[in-house]
């Protein structure tokens, strides 16, 4: 009997265990369908800027967690895994280890190192195609060609040298390949030559230390310039010098490491800055550098190479990693411990942190774009509307009159022609890049357009940005360098600005002192008036002719001297570079103002082309001539 009760006890006990286990089992969650990783939007700032920013997070090798995030600067929303929802059908997502991202023309290109490919996307990051390149590293662009450095060539060599590939961006096919040094990393194009740094990163203790120079015509390596041990980054500055970041021997202790930034000018003269630069970004005449050993951000003038104080403080970062300096803000990332989310910080140049956002793992590469996209409710379908850029997308003509900023804004380089100068203007101004273009003296002009016709609607239609500003304490005087606006319709549908031009009638149109048919001839031989601050030639160097004549209207002189300063009267309305950009109305134009040659109003429903020319002819000893500058243009109806 005793035995039996023992068995009963036992049975009840085991039953209890079973029940408990069954309960535990019911807690188990089941496996469902694997749903693609979502795109998650987070509002991170109320500040409004234009355009957007792509953040390529590298992800750790083998994790397949390269992630492309997108920050909409207009709405202040940060979207993690943006690529995922744009391309849910991409097998195994974006890939393994993102290494570079850049925009060229209307496309976005991303190097995915351990997926051995360059991912080609539209500006919304929708997949267009991919280019297979083994162990690809970085990119550069020129004349519709993409250049990609890769640690291995199409045929592996026992010497372990890498290659640079040339890809036709129209066909996404590799067209040429050239062998360079060991483990080539960043590369830049300058003067029809490609400069690529050979890091030798695979050869611990025997790093490479050269920059390979490749002639883009022949696509041959023409020389290897010794620079410093283990160079990984190369950037071009405003003075056409190359900044090369050499990391030194990483096996050495930090104190003994021979890192340096080597600055190479076009005569191959080297200047050495004893600075550790793991990341570099050059904006205007300042090179910003992340010094990982010091854990700080440093700034150097590209003019005289001196260190400049910067109020931006990143010393609290765990591992500062990615860096992008733009005209409006400086973006710098903290990669934390490299195996968890990083943080993107946005600083204004006064050192104030404007906002921050959590990124994916190892946010390393940043790319500023014009597009402002939001997650459409159904993320799987492309947006029904084709997206047009609100910003000017195309520059057709650029012919400045002789002036102190000609050949500088944009920079003329040996071999440039009228067409390549137009491309440079595009680089400066498309996508709201905010670069400055100078029209030189009186009559200099630029012709640009949008990727769509601009509608003539109620109120102002187009904003054209310049660099005018008010004198302090005044809105009547300031720096005003007025340019006249002409518009045109593509009447013959050939896509070219060869149709009738209509002037937008502005406040001085009917002023008796305005000369409506003025003309001036500029002669190469006359290029002798040099301002001590600007000693480059003033005659457009890409012109083959030795003289050219410009015609148009000339406004009466507007300059006055106030307390010893030469300033201009701010005109009431209708001129480019006359009022500060933040005055949207004052810098905007209404297509309804259009008049024909005889001054009669014309009705245009829309326009395709815009031309701006400098309408003042005034020169001063100290400040040089008044010249209209423009920074870009916006279709106000697209906003």
């Amino acid at each position: 009997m005793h035995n039996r009760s023992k068995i009963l006890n036992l049975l009840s006990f085991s039953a209890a265990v079973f029940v408990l286990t069954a309960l535990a089992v019911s807690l188990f969650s089941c496996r469902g369908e694997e749903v693609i990783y979502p795109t998650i939007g987070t509002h991170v700032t109320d500040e409004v800027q234009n355009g957007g920013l792509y953040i390529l997070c590298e992800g750790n090798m083998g994790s397949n967690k390269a992630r492309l995030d997108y920050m909409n600067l207009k709405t202040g929303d940060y979207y993690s895994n943006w690529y995922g929802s744009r391309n849910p059908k991409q097998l195994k997502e974006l890939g393994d280890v993102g290494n570079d991202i850049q925009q060229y023309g209307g496309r976005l290109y991303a190097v995915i190192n351990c997926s051995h490919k360059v991912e080609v996307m539209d500006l919304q990051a929708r997949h267009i195609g991919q280019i297979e390149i083994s162990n690809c590293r970085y990119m550069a662009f020129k004349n519709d060609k993409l250049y990609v450095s890769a640690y291995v060539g199409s045929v592996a060599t026992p010497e372990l040298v890498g290659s640079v590939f040339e890809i036709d961006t129209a066909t996404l096919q590799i067209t040429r390949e050239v062998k360079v040094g060991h483990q080539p990393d960043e590369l830049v194009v300058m003067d029809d030559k490609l400069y690529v740094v050979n890091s030798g990163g695979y050869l611990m203790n025997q790093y490479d230390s050269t920059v390979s120079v490749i002639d883009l015509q022949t696509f041959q390596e023409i020389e290897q310039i010794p620079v410093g041990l283990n160079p990984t980054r190369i950037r071009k500055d405003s003075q056409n010098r190359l900044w090369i970041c050499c990391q030194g021997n990483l096996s050495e202790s930090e104190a003994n490491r021979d890192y340096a930034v080597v600055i190479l000018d076009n005569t191959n003269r080297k200047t050495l800055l004893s600075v550790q630069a793991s990341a570099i970004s050059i904006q205007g005449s300042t090179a910003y550098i992340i010094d990982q050993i010091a854990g700080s951000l440093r700034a150097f003038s590209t003019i005289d190479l001196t260190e400049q104080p910067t109020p931006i403080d990143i010393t609290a970062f765990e591992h500062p990693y990615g860096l992008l300096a733009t005209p409006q803000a400086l973006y710098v990332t903290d990669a934390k411990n490299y195996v968890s989310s990083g943080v993107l910080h946005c600083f204004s140049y006064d050192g104030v942190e404007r906002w921050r956002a959590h990124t994916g793992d190892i946010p390393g590469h940043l790319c500023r774009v014009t597009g402002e996209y939001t997650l459409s409710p159904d993320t799987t379908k492309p947006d029904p509307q084709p997206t047009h850029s609100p910003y000017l997308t195309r520059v057709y003509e650029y012919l400045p009159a002789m002036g102190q900023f000609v050949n500088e804004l944009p920079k003329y380089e040996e071999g440039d022609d009228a067409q390549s100068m137009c491309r440079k203007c595009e680089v400066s101004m498309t996508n709201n890049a905010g670069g400055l273009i100078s029209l030189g003296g009186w009559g200099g002009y630029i012709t640009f357009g949008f990727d769509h016709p601009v509608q003539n609607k109620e109120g102002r239609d187009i904003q054209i940005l310049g660099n005018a500003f008010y004198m302090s304490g005044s809105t009547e005087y300031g720096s005003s360098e007025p340019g006249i606006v002409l518009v045109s319709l593509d009447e013959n549908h050939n896509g070219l600005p060869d149709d009738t031009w209509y002037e937008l009638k502005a406040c001085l149109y009917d002023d008796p002192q305005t000369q409506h048919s003025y003309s001036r001839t500029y002669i190469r031989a006359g290029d002798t008036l040099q301002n001590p601050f600007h000693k480059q030639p003033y005659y457009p160097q890409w012109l083959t002719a030795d003289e050219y004549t410009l015609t148009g209207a000339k406004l009466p002189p507007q300059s006055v001297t106030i307390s010893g300063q030469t300033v201009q009267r701010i005109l009431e309305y209708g001129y480019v570079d006359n009022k500060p950009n933040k005055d949207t109305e004052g810098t905007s134009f209404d297509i309804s103002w259009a008049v024909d040659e005889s001054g009669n109003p014309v009705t245009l429903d829309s326009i395709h082309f815009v031309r701006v020319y400098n309408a003042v002819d005034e020169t001063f000893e100290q400040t040089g001539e008044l010249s209209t500058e423009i920074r870009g243009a916006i279709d106000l109806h697209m906003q």
Partner: protein
Amino acid sequence: MANRRFLIVILALCAGSVYAFSDTELDSLYRDFRIDEVEITARALTKDVIVPQTLKGEELQRLNALSVADALRYFSGVQLKDYGGVGGIKTINVRSMGSQHTAVYYNGVQIGNAQNGQVDLGRFSLDNMEEIQLYNGQKSDIFQSAREFGAAGSVYMTTRKPYFKENERVHVRGKMRFGSFALANPNVGVDVKLTDALSMTIDAEYIYSDGKYPFRYKRVLPSGETAYDTTAVRQNGDVNAVRAELGLHHYYSNTGFWRVHGYNYWSERGVPGAIVNNVWRNGERLWDRSSFVQGIWQDEWFRRWSTRVVAKYANDYTHYINYDQRLLPSDNQYWQQEVYVSWANKVQLFRWWDVSLAYDYQFNALRKDEKITGVTDERFYRHSHWLSAATAFNIKEYLRLQASVLMTAITNHHSPITNSPKVTPGVFVSFRPYPAIDLSLNAFYKQSYRYPTFNDLYYTDLGNANLRPELARQHSVSLEYKANSQWLTANVALSYYYNRVTDKIIAYPKGQQFRWTMLNLGEVKINGVDAKADMSFFLPLRFVLRTRLNYTYQTAIDVTNPNDTYFGHQIPYIPRHSGSAVVGLEWESKRGDHYGFNYSFIYVGERYSQQENIIYNYVQPWYTHDLSMYGEWCLANSRELIANSQKVWLKANIEINNLLGQDYEVIQNYPMPKQNVRCTIAVKY
């Protein structure tokens, strides 16, 4: 006779007695059977205070498992890391403290890997295995090598020991296994009785698999529409391995024996690598040779002083080549040598009080050649000393207690700093309130260090010679109940544990560029509950129903730094819930043939692949259903062997694994095989 002996063992183990058998007692047990089959000389004081989880004998063979790693999935508190396929690396992590805290013993001697501190349990075949035990903390037996007091979790693998009935001189086993992915796995074993006291075992095995298994990646949109759905074949996952072992067992007296074991393993394998976008095959190859000779001698005098001497020499070679021309074309070779000696003593002061003292010494050497980085003939050495003192005493039948202290002193040449010797205590208590019922309340506290490996210290460009050892502190309480009757045996247990790992050695990016180093940075708090119930029901008509249930709940929380985004998050690859269930039904015919059916279910709950518990790191639960069926037939008494009544047995087994073909990953981007089949035919006499 065989059955009777088995029954005696079962009864001895389960009869509510205080007897249980550790490695050494089993030795004496077998010896005693060999001599007169009855007398059991094990004594209460030397047994384990806390009984380990055990899988042995036929139960082990019945599981759907090819390697020791597969079998360990059926233990609670264990997480297996499995990179997939026959050749994929398989390591275990006991109670979330990290795989390098787990010591692995082969016939009582630790298998080391001074280079990376991990033992690939996928390389140990079950064919030759008698028993696998898992101890949380240490084996709670004070008569053991000093080093055995040093691990946070211990896996003991014991190979089959020969035992002969009267008149038997030779046992032979032959086995052939075929299966999916071109698996071919022949195995031969011979046991020879050389003299009454001396026997020899030989075991050899070859294993081949092409590793080409299909796997599938499917993702859907939130709407349910398929985003992508691709099936591909795993490449470069082939393995070719040969294992050969020789054992000599000499039981020269009632108390003394020595054993020598030689082990050799050669393999060539592909390292299949992670499946990532645009990469479907990798070019890494690995060649291994692992050899060791180990000897144990043990004796006892005056029934009071027991001594044991262990010696081992191991020699390992690894050659790694990356043929993938897209990547750094590595060609690395590593040679490791290990010399180990141990002397353990135990003295019985009174019948209720034992003390022990042991000293171990080990020498490790690593030589490496790395062609591409230009490292040639770089050598590293390590000397390790362990000194342990332990005591065990009983208070009647109610309380058993063991306490030990271990002093560890490890010096690495090339290391600028000397870590001072570390002293770690361990206390194990078992309380039985009602001696008539086999219900025990057990508890232990233990500290242990995980020392940095050669890779942690000196790995090219990554090692940090200034590392301190990582400390694990374990607190555990458990309740265990065992019962048996004519109809049923049961063993149910419930444990709660709290562990804390500090000074965790982790890879951390340092200063400049993308470079890692090893740092003592990291602290983890682990709380867990393990529940298990093993039951056998002896049904009418010679049916036996066996069930084995395990369930583990654990939180393993990163508490390194409150400023980290992952502070308070579950550490990578540790599920909160995991468990297994095995149900087997066996039938024995009147003439002694066996037929059986086994079903097992393994569940591993949701996990995260990285420190942050965010959706981008989320890994779905996985669970597999495995089936096996087997039959064992007594063919006939072979003519020659009739004289000694030795029978020839034929056994056939068919296993279907991952029956429902779940597409799962244990480690992210390392897909596991879908449904696969194995068939085994074995003959033995």
